[in-house]
């Protein structure tokens, strides 16, 4: 009894002492902490409106509790499968095309021997990342425009008919993915290039002595060495499968092509904020967040099992 008391007292003193020793660091941390509570944790608490019928006059806590009825409304609505399908179509296409593109570009840049050429390619490839999404969306619309756009001018010159890209919905996923490749392939390659600089040059020297071709060096040295980076990036991408860049879609889409362009994020904005159905919108958004979290956790667990590489 006595020993128990004294250890408790001891640990308590230790606790206070350690906190006191860190008092200046705690003071520094205090402002970001308060910031996080206000702008991140209060909205998390506010997410309960997804289970209520939010009424601005009653406030969050006094609005009537309706359980999961908004979720049921969403799951049974005609839009549910369309939104899931569109969201997945765009992000899977991105995973399939844009994700490997960055890896391939990194391998190609890494293979250049002329440092000036290498530097020039990198400078050009990173450039579009810094252009705002509004300008990129404007650029896409201008490039694809019917009369004045370069694509249709080229088709015209070849004697082909004009295509109205922004009114036919089946083009939309490809437009999104090509835009993503144009804007972010270079940027995405940096992380792989960084991983490649850490590879021991002796490995390549030994391979050359053994008569390995460049292709064999890439396959047997470079790729295995950057595999952990690839896996981490892959987990993060899969974890975001249901996010897609809805802000860019919001800029690019129009009612004529909702059939293929409307995704969960844009739907939350339109129904929830524009349509003032706050509770319904919050429910759809919450569903999306939880889905993403589950995907991330699942894929992280799978990767940890099969490859020893995971986020945590």
């Amino acid at each position, binding site marked *: 009894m006595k020993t128990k008391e004294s250890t408790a007292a001891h640990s308590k003193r230790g606790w206070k002492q*350690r*906190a006191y*020793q*860190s008092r200046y*660091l*705690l003071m*520094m*941390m205090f*402002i*970001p*902490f308060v*910031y*996080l509570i*206000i*702008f*991140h*944790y*209060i*909205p*998390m608490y506010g*997410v309960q*409106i997804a289970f209520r019928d*939010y009424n601005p006059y009653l406030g969050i806590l006094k609005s009537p509790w309706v359980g999961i009825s908004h979720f049921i409304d969403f799951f049974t609505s005609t839009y549910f499968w369309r939104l899931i399908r569109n969201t997945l179509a765009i992000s899977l296409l991105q995973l399939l095309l844009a994700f490997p593109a960055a890896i391939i570009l990194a391998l190609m840049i890494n*293979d*250049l*021997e002329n440092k000036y050429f290498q530097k*020039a390619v*990198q400078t*050009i*490839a*990173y450039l579009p990342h*810094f*252009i*705002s*999404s*509004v*300008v990129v969306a*404007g*650029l896409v619309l*201008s*490039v694809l425009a019917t*009369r*004045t756009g*370069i694509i249709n*001018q080229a088709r015209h010159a070849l004697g082909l008919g004009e295509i109205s890209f922004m009114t036919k919905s089946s083009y939309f996923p490809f437009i999104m993915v090509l835009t993503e490749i144009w804007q972010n392939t*270079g940027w995405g390659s*940096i992380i792989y290039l*960084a991983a490649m600089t850490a590879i021991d040059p002796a490995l390549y020297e030994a391979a050359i002595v053994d*008569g390995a*071709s460049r*292709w064999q060096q890439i396959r047997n040295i470079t790729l295995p060495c950057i595999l952990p*980076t690839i896996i981490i990036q892959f987990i993060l991408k899969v974890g975001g499968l249901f996010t897609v860049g809805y802000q860019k879609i*919001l800029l690019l889409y129009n009612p004529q092509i909702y059939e293929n362009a409307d995704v969960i994020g844009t739907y*939350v904005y339109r129904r929830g*904020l524009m349509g003032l159905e*706050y509770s319904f*919108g*919050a429910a759809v958004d919450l569903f999306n*967040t939880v889905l993403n979290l589950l995907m*991330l956790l699942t894929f992280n667990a799978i990767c940890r099992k099969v490859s020893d590489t995971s986020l945590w």
Partner: protein
Amino acid sequence: MSIQKLSAGDKAFKAVNGVVLILFCALILYPLLWIVSGSFSDPFALMTGKVHLLPVDPTLKIYKIVFKHPDIWISYRNTIVYTVVGTFISVCLTAMAAYPLSRTEFFGKQFFTAVLMITMFFSGGMIPTFLLVQKLKMLDTIWAIVLPGAMSVYNTIVMRTFFISTIPKELEDSAFLDGANDIQFFWKIVLPLSKAIMAVMVLFYGVGQWNSWFSAFLYMSSRDRYPLQLILREILIQGNTNISGGGGGDNDLIGEGVKFATMVVATVPIMCLYPFLQKYFTKGVMIGSLKG
């Protein structure tokens, strides 16, 4: 013999690699060049599809129209204010969190790290955040633009990793022996040693704020407080190119040119900074990719 054969294969590999990369660069640059050339061309040439690579009948006609537009100037000024204030707040918050989290002896390190990391994987979402901003009476003010997304978890981790790897414990110990406390040490020793990471952060947040449009789109309602990107959205996306003031019939004719010129005007500051951006952004990504 076999070595020679392999090197022939390697030569082919190298050549293909170079050609594909040049094509890739051309594909990236071509639309940009087209926009710039188009903005300096005669509007009529642009409308009839005569601009392919270089400006046709070079003229500043379109820029004269764009610069006459008051919305462009007002929103440009707004964006500068939002970017300066927003970047300052963001960098301060990030540094104040990153430094304590980088110290091994920091009491509550695990707790605060968890508080930070959770926000990366779970959030209240668009609507609860909107209601909060509304409740705080921040709608249609600068605070709605600069506060809700002020602190990026990723950037905080990058900065923390930098502090862990550049500020050794011995330096801290010797400063404490001289009677300094954590805040004095941070202010007098750590900050001067961290100019590179500060530059990275200023550029990360600054470019992000300059290019951002969505929070303004959600929260701002007065047109005279719109940032540049929202005015751009009106012009580029909604096709509201009738900015010559008096309206008139040649709007259709100059419409496309006005779009091109506004894209150029909005992107020029970023492009002027591009050499720094490239250097420091790359550095930031490199630090971020270290396991910290």
